[in-house]
């Protein structure tokens, strides 16, 4: 693991009082390797290494720690800070209908995340309404209906032929009439480079004025995550990110890449296929995972 590798790389530092450029060179190479293996974006790796080098250079090697452990401490702290740190969602003003919109690439886990979010919000005392605004994927509406039933949350849908914008408008009217206080919009998966589909999201956003726009990203994604995040964020100014499939073994470097690229918080982690497999994102746990 990285601690062993850093200890190896820094074994010569023992007995010295300070870390120098020369002796952290090899350690930084190990960190770079670990990060690339964890799918951290090459640009984010560069930036991270520069920061760690700056922090580590000239630092006192604590007599109490192995030099490798000392380096790991710096890396871990810097990583946790970059992953979470100051990231908080602005509070939502009280009263009125809250609208939450989920978006992202095909197959990233949006529909499942909508149901999970609905369950969580319901357990926190809200009255959510799921909205099936994906009119493209075969049986998408059925899928959300089955999931809605599982978590005992109503699903608003329209017969085939309705456009997403119409569905959302009618859903808002329905929610107000039925006393639902939280609308969770499931949207179709789309490529970040599909201008027509990205325009559609912008139109839905204009209509619904969501207080929350969550970009759902599959934690297995490699270097492409930054492109995805940047495009979605530039068109929609997302509130935050939901990372899915964290119950897999992907090291999750995508978390650092996305934070670094768009500066938005990672808010939730989906950690399985069951409705309850959904939790708040923990930056420190993610840091440990990335470091392997």
């Amino acid at each position, binding site marked *: 693991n990285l601690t062993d590798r850093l200890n190896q790389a820094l074994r010569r530092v023992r007995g010295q009082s300070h870390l120098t450029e020369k002796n952290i060179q090899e350690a930084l190479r190990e960190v770079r390797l670990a990060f690339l*293996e964890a799918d951290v*974006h090459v640009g984010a790796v560069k930036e991270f290494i520069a920061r760690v080098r700056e922090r580590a250079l000239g630092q006192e090697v604590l007599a109490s720690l192995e030099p490798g452990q000392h380096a790991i401490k710096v890396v871990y702290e810097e990583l946790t800070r970059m992953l979470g740190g100051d990231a908080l969602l602005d509070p939502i003003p009280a009263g009125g209908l809250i609208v939450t919109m989920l978006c992202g*690439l*095909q197959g990233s886990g949006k529909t499942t995340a909508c149901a999970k979010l609905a369950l969580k919000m319901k357990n926190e005392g809200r009255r959510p309404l799921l909205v099936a605004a994906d009119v493209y994927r075969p049986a998408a509406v059925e*899928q959300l209906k089955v999931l809605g039933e599982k978590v005992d949350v109503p699903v608003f849908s329209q017969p085939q032929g309705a456009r997403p914008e119409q569905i959302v408008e009618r859903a808002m009217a329905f929610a107000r009439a039925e006393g639902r206080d939280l609308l969770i919009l499931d949207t179709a998966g789309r490529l970040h480079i599909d201008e027509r589909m990205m325009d559609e999201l912008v139109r839905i956003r204009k209509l619904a004025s969501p207080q929350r726009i969550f970009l759902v990203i599959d934690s297995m994604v490699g270097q*492409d995550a930054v492109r995805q995040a940047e495009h979605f964020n530039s068109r929609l100014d997302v509130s935050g990110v939901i990372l899915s499939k964290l*119950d*897999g073994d*992907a090291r999750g470097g995508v978390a650092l890449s996305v934070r670094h690229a768009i500066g938005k918080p990672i808010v939730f982690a989906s950690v399985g*296929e069951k409705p309850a497999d959904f939790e708040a994102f923990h930056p420190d746990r993610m840091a440990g995972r990335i470091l392997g």
Partner: protein
Amino acid sequence: FRGGLKLDDESLEQLEEILLAADVGMMTTQHLVAGLRERARRFRDKDVPADWAMNTLKELILDELQHETSAPALAENPPTIVLVVGVNGVGKTTAIGKLAARYVREGMTVLLIAGDTFRAAAAEQLAIWAERAGCEIHSAQEGADPASVVYDGLAHARRLGAHMVIIDTAGRLHTKTHLMAELSKIRRVIERDSPGAPHETLLVQDASTGQTGLVQARVFTEATQVTGVVLTKLDGTAKGGVTIAIRRELGLPVKWMGVGEKLDDLELFDPEAFAAAIFN
């Protein structure tokens, strides 16, 4: 790279970054760059010609990918039985719809087996694809045992005189041992049903998958002898570079590529286009 370029550390680093950005992974990138260095030796100390480095890397990548067994498998005596596997959300069900359409167009009688009995509305989704492709589908109740659905489906295929049977399975993370065991069980049911079956086991992978793709391939191959990869969502910006490592380590060729969400957005794998796209 205009004019000549010194194959120095800086330009090598730039080339490395292109490969890494395409999800080629550290190990394979180092292997390719070592190959490049080797071939650069003939230039001794002169500058290498423009584009030479990139073209040589493309050639080295193609060397890794070319293989005579990349053609889709067909059984000597029908039906050809194809098992489709992979992790969640990569495009298995959609790929099956596209394959079905292709084979129907070639005049085959095709049967789809809805082996995903877990996912909400999975059978409904596959049924829509069967309708679009113009073929039959065998499905069961949600929650039914997938191995029995496959067993019954294969019997249905025989009654139908199907030339091609394509079996959909639930997405599953390779880290879930009980789900991988379920997949091995499904494979055994198919093996017992017909000699030489399944004739093809396709691992579907999303082109945006990072280094975990290699682990996926190892684990799925162990559970169910994968014979080829379907690389999906290549109509996006992802390059699918991890498939080079999969080819090197496991000998698994990419056989098909998904390039969109419509019925005919499936093409035979084109290694030249794949290699070129990495450098676009």
